[in-house]
């Protein structure tokens, strides 16, 4: 599904290298987690994959189903099936959540040569999916993320994911700012989307999210590299001992 090879990335504006050779391979239907201390490059990896400006790829590649992602515009990556759930979902005053969702869904359908959804069909689908995420009609009507609580913003991200039906989902610290109940709700939303054809990359600081979204593989990232990979037990090790031991082991 997603194959990242020897990815090196620096900031465009300054000579700061953030990713120093990341290798990662995620198969169809797999859930991988990336954990790591602050500043290790986790969020940069998610932004670079989604196509945010401000980063320069100096070496390496990232392919989604054999297609080179790094040469595409952000919207082309989305149409190819990539989805990034933001750590800080952006507030967009003046743009209704529903308008936004419908424009996004239809833009992707159009890019893939599919027929656009009618207003009626769209409404039916969005209401159904919103209900399971406990997103009420009012939240759908309000401007995108404006005045949403932290939990509402993250649930709104998952709703977008559910509507867009991507094949590769990246969750960038989706657990940050969530209380226990909200984390459960968001995790259930994610788990409902798990399928044989859909893969996940879950970026998190804490093991607790991985209690809800059970990963197949856990990677530890530090200083721009993946320093260790293993099963779910690796996350428990981090939870119990912190990153220090792992980092020492590498040195």
């Amino acid at each position, binding site marked *: 599904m997603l194959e990242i090879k020897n990815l090196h990335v620096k900031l465009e504006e300054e000579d700061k290298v953030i990713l120093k050779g990341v290798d990662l391979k995620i198969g169809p239907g797999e859930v991988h987690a990336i954990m790591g201390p602050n500043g290790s490059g986790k969020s940069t990896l998610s932004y670079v994959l989604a*196509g945010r400006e401000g980063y320069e790829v100096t070496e390496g590649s990232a392919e989604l189903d054999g297609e080179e992602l790094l040469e595409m515009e952000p919207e082309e990556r989305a149409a190819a099936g990539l989805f990034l759930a933001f750590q800080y979902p952006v507030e967009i005053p003046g743009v209704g959540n529903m308008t936004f969702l419908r424009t996004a869904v239809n833009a992707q359908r159009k890019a893939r040569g599919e027929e656009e959804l009618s207003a009626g069909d769209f409404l039916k689908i969005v209401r159904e999916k919103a209900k399971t995420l406990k997103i009420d009609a009012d939240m759908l009507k309000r401007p995108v993320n404006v005045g949403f609580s932290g939990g509402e913003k993250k649930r709104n991200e998952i709703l977008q994911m559910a509507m867009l039906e991507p094949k590769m989902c990246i969750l960038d610290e989706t657990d940050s700012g969530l209380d226990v109940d909200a984390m459960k709700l968001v995790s259930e939303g994610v788990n409902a989307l798990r399928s044989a054809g859909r893969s996940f990359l879950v970026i998190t600081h804490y093991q607790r999210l991985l209690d809800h979204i059970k990963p197949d593989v856990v990677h530890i990232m530090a200083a721009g590299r993946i320093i260790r990979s293993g099963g779910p037990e690796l996350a428990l090790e981090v939870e119990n001992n912190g990153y220090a031991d792992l980092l020492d082991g590498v040195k």
Partner: protein
Amino acid sequence: MALPQVKQDALAARLSGLSAPAKGWTQAARAAATDRLNAQGLPTRRDEYWRYTDPAQLTRPDVSGAAAVLAPSFAALDTVKLVFTDGVFDAAASDDPAAAGVELLSLAGAADIHWAQGLYGQLETRGSSPVERPLAALNTAHAREGVLIRVTGQAAKPVSLIYTQKSAVSDVFLHHVVKLEEGAEITLLESGTPGARFNTVLEVDVASNARFHHIRTQGPDADRRGLTHIFAHMADNALFKSFTLTAGGRLTRNEAILEITGDDSVAHVAGTVMGEGRDFLQDDTIFITHASERCESRQVFRKVLKNGATGVFQGKILVKQGAQKTDGYQMSQSLLLDEDAQFLAKPELEIYADDVKCSHGSTSGAIDETALFYLQSRGLPKRTAQALLVLAFLAGTLEEIEDEAIAAEVHARLEDWLHGLED
């Protein structure tokens, strides 16, 4: 002090070919306006409120332009339509004015009507001090066309003034007077381009407990050169709301001069502007005077400018002595789509009362890159995402329109025009 020779010459050149009606009930007002004009001369860039906007295109003797063909605004609404073609009232193309449920006459056709006599040119005169507005005086002296509306209760329908332009050299003056008696309410709509060049004055007297709503669209023709003035006076507990959507044109200056002398009144002036290209200049010049207690005024303007377009905002709130508990708000914002576009803002507050709340702000910025990336990451092509953000920015002012059907109509126009701007 006598006017300098160069100013006298410019004025004489502008007046050549113009003539005032020789008789009638407006004579005294016209004579007084002519005197003011002769004392002041035409504005130049040296005048304080014309520094950002060169008035030359409005003051030069000759007019050249292109005829504009515009799809009508507000067509879906049930209104009384009054059509002016190249500045002349076209009764045959208009609805029966009686359907509005108000007293309504065309200025050209009005014999001695006592209610307008004390208003025609009077609010303009009051609004031309302390800032001189010689082009408004020029209008009062020379306008032959316009509507006179007196409202005594709830108007049955909105009155929609539709301007169509056929001539490429029409030089149009329109002077409207609206008088709302106590407790009356009316909505006045304006759309279209009155002429190749136009100078309009709208005088509105809002009595106690009366409510006046004004919504207009300008454009999106390419060649418009126009100056509009609103002079309004408000008594107690009165409401005045004016909203303008402007697109295209070369030079559009909209002046609104509002004076509140009654307590507990509300005055809102808002506008949304889309401009493109080096030849585009749009200017909102507002002057709101608070002379009474517990009144609220709001100025809300948003402009999107691209490819070297220029937007101007000059807004002033004057709070006179004794106008306690005044709540004045002023916000002008621009979205500059490239580095060539510019927004010139001059917010002014002048306050002589000690218990007031007045705030003002002005911002200028590019499209929010983070929001743009967010939208793109959800699959919206960059241009679609940009258009959506521009629409969201501009549509923010539409909240100033009370009537939902009219707001929806204006929103639809806005979307159409933005689409045109994108192509």
